[in-house]
């Protein structure tokens, strides 16, 4: 692809050496019982880069603890306010310690010790104002594509996704990887049938074995949950086999070699293309791996994603807390219906108005513009969706990240 614009911008330099593209104060509830109070604090700062995140469960969960620690130290996050009810099991002291050790301002409010809802909301608003002032002069540092972590997800897919939005995103991924970015794709349950060709793209044969194993794990997991893999309507839309359906999703990973497998919250160790294994390890428990698209987006942000590419056919309207979402609409009719929610019209490929290459360049340029501070459609609308649920994972095997 040709160079189309300057690909450096000023990011936010963090004390731990990472570089962000936003300077957000995160307000985190540590149990559903603290959600309302945390939400009331955030509502006082509408349009001011103060985002609500949190974990609803009262029972402890190592995965949720890890995700919250990674989000609290995400490069787009400048400071964190923790809001605890007081009696929940979440290890708030460890979370505060991890965030503090990264050099970020962090404060904890415990509702049961702070005079209840109204008093905690008032203290929380003061704390956020204090933090905003503290991070206003965070050093601005030069940043380029090689500093970025970019994620991709598809949701609300239809027959157009695999021929317009997903292959265009794949070409954008190829260029990003070529320029040194770390790129993440996932949805192992929709890679069934792609495991052998995907394994051939592994940088090491041992990694190829692991890639096949994690798709096989997804197939087992989903079969216990009773998922059907191919509906009659897929054939109506022109899909002939399960391989073809999976490939429609798989093509958004592009053609680059696969550098490794990560699990939610693992940070890619260097540039390259990574598969995120989102399906829990061990016996099936806690229900569906990801109950909606934002659960996957949150996991990739926890792994450091600065920006997420979201390819949709039917038309999703979501954004996310912490990192901007760029929405790529694969279906030209959907684009016309929901234009205000979309950033890129990949449906133009289907109508012959743009080539895959044109849209890939548009996606790449949108990523660098977003990194330089331009708001995406969902950011401008104020979208901040966030969801985190229970899961359990074993540590990564030694072959998952070759050479690390």
């Amino acid at each position, binding site marked *: 692809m040709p160079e189309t614009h300057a690909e450096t911008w000023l990011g936010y330099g963090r004390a731990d050496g990472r570089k962000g593209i936003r300077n957000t104060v995160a307000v985190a509830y540590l149990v559903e019982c603290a959600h309302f109070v945390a939400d009331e604090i955030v509502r006082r700062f509408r349009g001011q880069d103060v985002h609500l995140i949190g974990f609803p469960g009262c029972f402890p969960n190592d995965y949720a603890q890890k995700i919250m620690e990674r989000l609290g130290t995400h490069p787009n996050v400048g400071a964190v306010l923790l809001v605890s009810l007081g009696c929940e099991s979440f290890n708030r002291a460890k979370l505060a310690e991890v965030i503090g050790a990264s050099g970020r301002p962090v404060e904890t409010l415990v509702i049961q010790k702070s005079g209840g809802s109204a008093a905690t909301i008032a203290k929380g608003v003061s704390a956020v104002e204090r933090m905003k002032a503290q991070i206003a002069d965070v050093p601005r540092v030069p940043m380029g594509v090689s500093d970025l972590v970019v994620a991709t997800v598809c949701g609300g897919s239809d*027959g*157009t996704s*695999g*021929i317009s939005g997903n*292959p265009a995103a794949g070409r954008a991924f190829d260029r990003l990887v070529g320029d040194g970015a770390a790129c993440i794709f996932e949805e192992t349950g929709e890679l*069934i*049938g*792609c495991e052998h*060709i995907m394994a051939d793209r592994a940088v090491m044969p041992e990694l190829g074995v692991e890639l096949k194993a994690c798709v096989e794990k997804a197939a087992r997991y989903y079969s216990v949950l009773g998922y059907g*893999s*191919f*509906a*009659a*309507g897929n*054939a*109506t*839309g*022109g899909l*002939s*086999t*399960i*391989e*073809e359906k999976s*490939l*429609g999703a*798989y*093509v958004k990973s592009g*053609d680059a070699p696969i550098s490794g497998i990560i699990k939610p919250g693992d940070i890619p160790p260097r540039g390259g293309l990574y598969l995120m294994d989102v399906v829990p390890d061990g016996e099936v428990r806690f229900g569906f791996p990801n109950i909606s698209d934002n659960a996957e987006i949150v996991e990739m942000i926890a792994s450091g994603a600065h920006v997420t590419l979201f390819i949709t056919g039917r038309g999703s309207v979501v954004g996310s807390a912490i990192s901007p979402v760029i929405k790529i609409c694969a279906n030209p009719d959907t684009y016309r219906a929901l234009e205000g929610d979309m950033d890129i019209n990949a449906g133009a*490929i*289907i*109508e*012959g*108005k743009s080539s*895959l290459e044109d849209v890939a360049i548009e996606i790449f340029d949108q990523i660098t513009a977003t990194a330089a501070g331009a708001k995406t459609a969902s950011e401008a609308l104020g979208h901040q969706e966030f969801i985190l649920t229970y899961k359990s994972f074993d540590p990564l095997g030694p072959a998952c990240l070759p050479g690390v």
Partner: protein
Amino acid sequence: MNTFLKLHRDDNVQVALRMAPKGSIIKAEGGPVGTLTEVAMAHKVADRAISEGEMVIKYGMPIGVATVDIAPGAHVHVHNIASRYTATHYREEDAGLTDA
């Protein structure tokens, strides 16, 4: 504009970008090919001859095996290719098979 999209250089099928009437022209490496039937949007057509047992390639990757010899310009779908994993479930009346 072209009615058909070739997604990858290695592909032996192309995808209809809109409903294509019988006789619509596909640009192929071996020269132009006419579709043998009407083809619905997002459905596939062979842009060269594919022999029985040969892989059908889309996105540069195999999506199944040809179960019969497929002529250039023929609709490629559930009636002439098969999964190497699980049989495809479809309803005959809804599968968009104008030539079945």
